[in-house]
């Protein structure tokens, strides 16, 4: 088996890199989204804890972008797949698993746009940035479907266990966050309707 390793690496090295980086990216995106949703729910009022969570959220998001970049380069370099620049840059162009890979391309664009928009929030405005940032859950959902539909390791028990165990709390946190945002909006509307006290 050891003798076969150089041959495996020379013929399937890029494919192994693309699979490994995809799994790392998925773990990091999942962690970042989980931390982001947890922060939004404000579970602990301690500002030091909130600061630590925010730092970890940002670091995992940036590391995920790097892993997604490595995944794209490895797919592009795969001599078997030969996707071409259009195959990795334009959704639904790659022949292999056209739909699921197209979803993956969209997820990558969203990840870069929404992730890096954090550093442009002064220009686009904090409120607008926050509204756009809520769409980051789409990166996770599209990434999950891309992995399930086009991934070579979809049948792996470890992957399925990780995806299943993390999808449930993320879904619960997301529903909770939606509910909290709706309640907050309602409170704001009620407060604006309330008549102002007479000033004498």
């Amino acid at each position, binding site marked *: 088996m050891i003798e076969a390793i150089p041959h495996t690496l020379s*013929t399937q090295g890029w494919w192994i890199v693309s699979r490994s980086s995809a799994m*790392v990216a998925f773990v990091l995106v999942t962690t970042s989204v989980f931390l982001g949703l947890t922060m939004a729910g404000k579970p602990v009022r301690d500002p030091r*804890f909130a600061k630590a969570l925010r730092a970890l959220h940002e670091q995992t998001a940036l590391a995920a972008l*790097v892993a997604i970049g490595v995944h794209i380069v490895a797919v592009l370099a795969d001599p078997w797949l030969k996707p071409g620049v259009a195959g990795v840059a334009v959704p639904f162009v790659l022949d292999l698993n056209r739909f699921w890979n197209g979803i993956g391309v969209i997820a990558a664009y969203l990840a870069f746009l929404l992730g890096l928009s954090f550093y442009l929030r002064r220009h686009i405005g904090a409120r607008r940035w926050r509204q756009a940032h809520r769409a980051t859950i789409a990166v996770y959902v599209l990434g999950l479907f891309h992995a399930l539909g086009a991934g070579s390791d979809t049948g792996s028990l470890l992957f399925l266990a990780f995806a299943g165990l993390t999808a449930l709390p993320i879904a619960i946190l997301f529903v909770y966050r939606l509910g909290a945002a709706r309640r907050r909006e309602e409170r704001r509307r009620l407060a604006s309707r309330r008549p102002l006290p007479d000033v004498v």
Partner: protein
Amino acid sequence: MTTPRPRAVVIGSLVLFAVIFAVLTFELSASASTSAGKTQAARKARPAPTETKTDAAEPEEPAPESVEPEYEYVEPEPEPEVEYVEPEVEEVPPVVTSSS
């Protein structure tokens, strides 16, 4: 609580990448070392266009030996016999010479 350093996330990601890379490499090498496993691994790994994109892969079975094409023996038809026709010889009357 101290703020986590970016180095921890970077090292953690690299370690995870290295572990997955090593596991996948060993798994594929183990499958490739047996011919049956090789076929199974190739099918499992690259399902859809494997059948059409096998030009880069090693052949699974040895190429069949070149077989001389069999020719059916057809007996050549005999050439039509040319009938020998004896040339007609004009009869010349014998010349009689008188010797008187």
